[in-house]
């Protein structure tokens, strides 16, 4: 008899412990879900860029390569257009200048001065889902 009551008491204690544990688990799960939601939201790309260029050395390399890449692509495309259409040197002149502009745009974008081609990345990501 006394054994039975003790068993009962134990079971009750176990029960309340289990309830507390499951409540705690639920709370943790909710917290985790919120944290993941917060993490899932894509940060604006300027912030990502800035994190990517943590050291000034890397930043300098990055900006210069952006400018050079723009100019090179402009020159290459202009030269190709000249060869294909036989309008030398106009294609090279026009596209070299446009390449410079594209290079400057690249630099400003990677420096985070100008928003990227997809303004408000966070918003668009949210809507598409």
């Amino acid at each position, binding site marked *: 008899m006394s054994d039975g009551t003790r068993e009962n008491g134990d079971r009750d204690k176990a029960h309340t412990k289990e309830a507390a544990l499951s409540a705690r688990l639920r709370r943790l799960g909710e917290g985790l879900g919120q944290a993941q939601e917060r*993490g*899932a939201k*894509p*940060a604006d*790309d300027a912030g*990502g*860029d800035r*994190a*990517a*260029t*943590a*050291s000034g*050395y*890397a930043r300098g*390399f*990055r900006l210069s*390569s*952006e400018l*050079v*890449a*723009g100019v*090179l*692509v*402009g020159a290459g*495309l202009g030269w190709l257009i000249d060869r294909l259409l036989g309008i030398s040197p106009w294609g090279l002149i026009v*596209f070299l200048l*446009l*390449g410079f*502009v*594209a*290079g400057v*745009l*690249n630099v400003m*974008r990677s420096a985070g001065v100008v928003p*990227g*081609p*997809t*303004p408000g*990345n966070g918003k*668009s*990501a949210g809507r*598409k*889902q």
Partner: protein
Amino acid sequence: MTVDPIHQFAIKDLVPIITIGHHHFAFTNSALFMFVIVILVSALLIGATVPRAMVPGRLQSVAEMSYEFVANTVRSSAGTEGMKFFPFVFTLFMFVLFANMIGLIPYSFTVTSQLIVTATLALLVFFIVVIYGFWRNGLGFLKLFVPKGVPIYILPAIVVIEVLSFLSRPISHSVRLFANMLAGHITLQVFAGFIIMLAGFGIAGWFGAALPLILVIMLTALEFLVAFLQAYVFAILTCIYLNDAIHPGH
């Protein structure tokens, strides 16, 4: 005694050349190191995940940390939808990271200091972005080149500039990694060459050689930072470009 700082980038044929038509194929030291990188990355990740411990051991927590790190990078710059590209980005990150780190071991070869390797990786990313962008969005992908809120009379010029800017991506993407690794290794070699040259001058030279030695030690630490940072930058730029393919402008 002088040291040739460029010599470390020489490609050597390890296995005799096979000639097919007019093309020569050889197993080079570059290919060997790429194999080593792939084997090391696979060994690390497979070896780390075999125990599947609830409380991770050292190796397993390295693997878990690298997973978490890349997963957070992908999520923060390409959104949750970008996670379908996670295996691709993770592979790129681990490959570049190991290539950079193995390159810092003396007498080893830095695969990422070859422009052709980084250009191949960057072009792979570029074509995946273009093909996936068109496959997913159809012609809507072209909206990427038409920014919103631009007056109609300058729109043609803007579109051409945007297209040029888009085409320049693989160049800057590949040149950045390549130039960083090349410049870093040449700098290290030049300063290490100073030590040898100064040490040749006798006792006074030994004291002089201490200066470049300190510098080389500091540069090596910097190179480790650059090696990691460039792998991270390569991965995050891949994510940003993939984000354009997933969500082109509207």
